[in-house]
């Protein structure tokens, strides 16, 4: 079994933070000035409104299993950037950048109508620009 790991890489993205990120609910729960890289396997990929969501099983800094919930854009908006319901599936290996939740829970925001962070699925990069 391949080793799973979470690599924390806090990057200042002041420029991104200044862009209003539109969806239906805003970004108040996430820290747009940080980007975290989550590496693990896909447990579930929901391609539904109001936003697509992927759950990733990864290991935290203590080596414990941790389930990340990562929010993406609305399916229609993601589709315009080349994503689809088949972009990933359960068991896929994924490396995902995400803006982490401000309160420290393993949740993040990786896409809105103006943001689309890097996702690598089984070694292949998904479209990362709107």
């Amino acid at each position: 079994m391949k080793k799973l790991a979470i690599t924390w890489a806090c990057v200042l993205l002041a420029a991104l933070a200044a862009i209003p990120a539109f969806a239906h609910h805003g970004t108040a729960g996430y820290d747009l000035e940080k980007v975290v890289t989550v590496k693990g396997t896909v447990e579930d990929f929901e391609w539904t409104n109001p936003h697509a969501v992927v759950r990733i099983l990864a290991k935290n800094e203590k080596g414990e299993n941790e389930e990340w919930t990562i929010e993406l854009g609305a399916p229609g908006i993601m589709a315009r950037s080349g994503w689809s319901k088949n972009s990933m599936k359960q068991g896929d290996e994924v490396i995902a950048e995400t803006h982490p939740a401000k309160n420290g829970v393993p949740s993040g925001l990786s896409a809105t109508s103006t943001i689309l962070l890097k996702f690598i699925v089984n070694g292949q990069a998904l479209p990362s620009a709107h």
Partner: protein
Amino acid sequence: MKNLIRCGVLALAATAAFQVGLEAQSGATTAKSAAVPDLSGYWNIKGGAPSWDPADLAGKSPKNAPMTPWSRQKFEAARPPFGANATFESVNDPVQKYCDPPGVTRLYQYPYEFLFVQTPDTVYILYEFSRVWRLIPLNKEHPKDPDSTWMGDSVGRYEDGALVIDTIGFNDKTWLDQVGHPHSDALHLVERLRRVDKDTLELELTIDDPKAYTKPLTAKRTFTRSASPPTEALCSASEMQAFQNQVMTPTVKAPKK
């Protein structure tokens, strides 16, 4: 030389006839052109200004909008998704909480598409978000005492290359914008939609609501042509509730120690 003169006379006559035609279309009381602009295409509302206050389109100081005491009280109770007061907690945005119709002004702030269906006597606007649509009769008057409705009573006309839509008869259940500014049932909305170029559509919006604002608000937005058709961006209350519980609520629980 004779041919040249003949040609000039014909050109002048054609120009005069065209002008008469235009004036006939626009009515006896106005010299404005009623030529019908081509509004076809899918128009994409990119992310951007969440407020309709022209002095603060980014919503950084939404409390500074010229609100009346009536609307300020409602604004202060709002828990909006965007702007300086954006929050995930105790959300009371009627769209997020109930999947209520967003209302006309907010529809131009969601990052989806809309399109026009132009017929000789009616224009229809179909919005991707929530899949709501509007029926806009052309060159008609409003009813004398319209019902109060989510989308209001709209009438339209063509004027100087723009589709001008006049809407009254709103209820006061929707928000004016994404930062929680309210509006009242006295809202009078004028939308001027015109093609700036092949791939750009401009909206000039005038919001006149003396019960809620001490002066009219006027702002512009532009939309770009999209190659992809609208998708099913329905607002489903069950999906919205599940998303709130599973994705949003965990991010506002007590911070991890």
